[in-house]
């Protein structure tokens, strides 16, 4: 076997006549400090760089054979001289020079309904497609032409990165036309409240901040005063007021609690790609209430990659219901939680500005009452007619 360093840097193979000649030659190499390898067949390998130093010794010996340079450099030189390598080099050079002048790919950036295939169909008549020459592509003109030809596109930008065309698009959005209110209307109070904020878009404000209004009072009138030119309009605007309210929560002392027992497997199946194999399934009618839990587990390799195999298990968990009496502390805490939920639902998008709660134990449990004030939108639009006209 040829040593790796011999093969990497080149070597010569020398064959001498007679075993004593081989031993003599090796002894001379030893004295000169030249590395050489002697094979079991008696052939001597010498590094190419040492060959010139020992040429005198070789000429003095009775050499049967001295090979040409061998190893990687010799192979490389031979490959360079062959016509196949020259053709390959010329082709590679042509590819390196010519490849960037072609459009290799068209990629779509953005766009929801338009696919890459559709976009390529749009761009092909305009001269931009895979394989076309970059020198014949004018991105600015293509952008303009694409926008003019396809009204569904709102904005187009073509970028060249390397030899790939990145086409960035924005699609036109169908915006519904603004609703035009026809006829006449007033904005009236939906609740009894104190006005805290009023802004008029159209119409004439009849109330100011701090005024107390009753439900049904006109807040913004659709009847314009003479100083504003008179006439009627569709009043609109935002009116916010402080609305007082009261809510109550009753909590029973006895509650029903569910206890879940130990689950037992009722079905097991293996899904490989889209094929399902049922390992087992237990069919039975259960008298008591139970919960069926499905568990799908994907098989993963140690490196985290998912295999297309899924283990699908089903468990049946028995449920038993028991009744329990709550202590006073638990009752009040539960009532407080429920009251908070009720208030949150009642306030909605409004702003809670005051709340006071009171409660007491009853025969059944606990009753909690809360008085609150919330700032919310109180104006509702009520259309009206003038002489039978809407």
């Amino acid at each position, binding site marked *: 076997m040829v040593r790796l360093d011999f093969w990497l840097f080149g070597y010569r193979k020398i064959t001498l006549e007679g075993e004593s000649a081989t*031993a*003599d030659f090796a002894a001379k190499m030893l004295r000169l400090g030249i590395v050489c*390898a*002697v*094979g079991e067949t008696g052939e001597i390998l010498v590094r190419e760089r040492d060959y010139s130093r020992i040429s005198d010794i070789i000429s003095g010996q009775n050499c049967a054979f001295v090979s040409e340079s061998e190893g990687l450099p010799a192979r490389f030189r031979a490959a360079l001289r062959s016509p196949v390598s020259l053709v390959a080099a010329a082709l590679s050079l042509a590819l390196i020079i010519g490849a960037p002048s072609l459009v290799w790919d068209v990629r779509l950036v953005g766009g929801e309904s338009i696919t890459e295939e559709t976009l390529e169909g749009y761009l092909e008549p305009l001269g931009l497609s895979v394989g076309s020459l970059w020198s014949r592509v004018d991105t600015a003109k293509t952008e303009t032409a694409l926008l003019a030809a396809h009204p569904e596109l709102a904005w187009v930008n073509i970028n060249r990165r390397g030899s790939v065309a990145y086409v960035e698009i924005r699609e036109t959005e169908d915006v519904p036309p603004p609703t035009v209110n026809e006829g006449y209307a007033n904005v009236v109070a939906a609740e009894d409240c104190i006005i805290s904020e009023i802004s008029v878009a159209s119409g004439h404000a009849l109330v100011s901040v701090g005024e107390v209004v009753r439900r049904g009072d006109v807040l913004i009138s659709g009847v314009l005063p003479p100083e504003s030119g008179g006439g009627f309009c569709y009043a609109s605007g935002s009116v916010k007021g402080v609305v007082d309210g009261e809510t109550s929560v009753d909590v029973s002392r006895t509650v029903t609690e569910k206890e879940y027992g130990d689950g037992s497997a009722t079905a097991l199946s293996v899904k490989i790609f889209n094929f399902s194999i049922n390992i087992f399934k237990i069919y039975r009618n259960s008298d008591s209430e139970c919960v069926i839990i499905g568990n799908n587990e994907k098989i993963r390799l140690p490196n985290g990659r998912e295999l297309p195999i899924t283990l699908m298990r089903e468990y049946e968990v028995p449920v038993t219901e028991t009744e329990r009496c709550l202590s006073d502390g638990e009752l009040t805490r539960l009532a407080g939680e429920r009251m908070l939920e009720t208030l949150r639902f009642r306030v909605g998008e409004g702003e809670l500005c005051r709340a006071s709660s009171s409660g007491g134990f009853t025969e059944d449990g606990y009753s909690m009452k809360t008085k609150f004030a919330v700032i919310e939108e109180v104006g509702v639009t009520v259309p009206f007619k003038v002489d039978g006209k809407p």
Partner: protein
Amino acid sequence: MLKNKNEESSAPKGFYLSCERVAGGVALIVGGIMSITDFSDSQVMLAGHTGRIGVAGSRLSMTVFENKSVEIVGRVEEIKFIYGKA
């Protein structure tokens, strides 16, 4: 480095060699070689300062290094240490 004077290498006194198993048999590296007196695929005779070393076996090949050491690879069956320069 040897910690104890009693821990001598496997070679007899005056000879420098190490041996390890490799593919194709063993690799026997012998140091301090002055000359190679005989070489064939079954026998190698090396001459050192203290005396001669004879290696017998089969499929023997040899590599000569710059630092006066010689590596013999093959199926080594017998190693002879001969004191003196006869």
